[in-house]
């Protein structure tokens, strides 16, 4: 601000009022940001502490509250604490779906990854790679997510069901094809595989397309029905 020549008093008062008003607006902005960023309702005292000196916090909050009253978000007071809440009449927009995204369990991630890299793969093979039994629920979760599907049946004793991934799987993980899954070198390069990797370490190359493998039979309608009833791949398959 450049120094101003001394002026008639009216202007001075006006300028002063302008300065007061702009300090007030600044205080509003600060209060607004503080309450917005806080995980809990913010106490009036702690707001007051951060406002420019000489500003009445209560007045600032009252004006903010009035400004937000007609909006989609309201400033609400809980005792002497303040918080933003979406307007009560809009709850229908916010609560329509009620499907909270859940994190996949570690076991599910592992099984999904094995299915992605090793498909077509049977439950027994998954267990062999993981070294532990896979609970039935794990594959169910992946099926429910729409990322894993029955591919067919292996032409081997017991004709075990083979698993593969779906189109939705590729979409969700931003892959164009299964071949986009990074290979050994790339996992190493990205630091995901570290340390010494034994010479025999192999990573399978996922199939390029959905064609059945040579030792794989397609699923028949009756297979599917059966599986649907029997719940897929129950722990004692044979």
């Amino acid at each position, binding site marked *: 601000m450049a120094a101003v020549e001394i002026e008639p008093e009216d202007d001075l008062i006006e300028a002063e009022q302008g300065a007061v008003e702009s300090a007030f607006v600044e205080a509003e902005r600060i209060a607004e940001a503080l309450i917005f960023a806080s995980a809990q309702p913010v106490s009036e005292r702690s707001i007051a502490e951060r406002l420019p000196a000489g500003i009445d916090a209560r007045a600032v909050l009252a004006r903010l509250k009035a400004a937000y009253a007609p909006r989609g978000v309201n400033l609400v007071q809980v005792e002497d604490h303040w918080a933003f809440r979406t307007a009560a009449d809009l709850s229908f927009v916010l609560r329509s779906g*009620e499907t909270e995204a859940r994190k996949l369990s570690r076991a599910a991630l592992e099984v999904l990854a094995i299915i992605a890299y090793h498909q077509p793969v049977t439950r027994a093979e998954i267990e062999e790679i993981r070294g532990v039994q896979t609970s039935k629920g794990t594959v169910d979760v992946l099926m429910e997510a729409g990322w894993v599907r029955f591919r067919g049946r292996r032409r081997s004793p017991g004709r075990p069901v083979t698993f593969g991934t779906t189109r939705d799987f590729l979409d969700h993980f931003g892959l164009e094809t299964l071949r986009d899954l990074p290979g050994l070198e790339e996992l190493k390069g990205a630091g995901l595989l570290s340390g010494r990797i034994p010479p025999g370490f192999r990573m399978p190359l996922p199939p390029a397309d959905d064609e059945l493998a040579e030792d794989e039979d397609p699923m028949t309608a009756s297979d599917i029905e059966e599986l649907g009833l029997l719940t897929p791949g129950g722990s004692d398959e044979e």
Partner: protein
Amino acid sequence: MTKGKTTTADGAAPMDPLWQEHGRPERAEGEPALVIDVGGFEGPLDLLLHLARAQKVDLARISILALAEQYLEFVDTARQVRIELAADYLVMAAWLAYLKSRLLIPQQAKDEGPSGEEMAATLAFRLKRLEAMRDAATRLVNRNRLGRDVFARGAPEHIADDRKSVFEATLYDLLSAYANLRQRQAVTQVTIEKRQVWSLSDARDILMRMIGEIGEDWHALDRFLLRYLVAPADRATAIASAFAASLELAREGQVELRQDGAFEPIFMRRGKTPLPRDGQ
């Protein structure tokens, strides 16, 4: 060894005193003192950039020759005091020594290699590009950052989002789960071997680094490689391994080799059709 300097017996003197030579007369103009903590550099280009900066002129006007000399001086000093330099630094030294020879010796008529000037321009370009990226990184990191300068809603309320899936997982989650799993299973058979000689795979790694440096023009690199990459005592094993590795790389199409006659220098360039590296 520099005069008046006492290094500890095992050469394990602290880093900076090795380079900061007190009580020494002022260096001649245009010859900035090397004050270098090798641990502080992100590779040879970074070191070169630092040296170029010390020339105090625009990158477009630096003397590449002087720069190469300073770098080689640095590497020689490091070797004298037995600092183990990473292969990247030595590879660059070999390349710069070659560059220096190209700049100093007039080009032969039948010589197909790139001229010293072309090589120098390539180096200057790479320095400029690295510097640009470094400046970009600085500008990026100094922006107003979420969680530091700018904040998101502290108490988010639940909204129904449009995700098709009710489950959340990123590709990173998936891959790290897989990598961890496989590693866990593999970890049992790890053996750590002690290295005494240049193994074929060491040599191969170093040659692969070279391929990145030399590009698609013929370079006679063998002499420079050997001079900078190995201590004299290891020279025999290095020659054998490097030669074997270069043959292997040539077979894979990663490099092309050429030798005009017996005992002539071996020329090398990047292969036209490298095979996939990840064994696919």
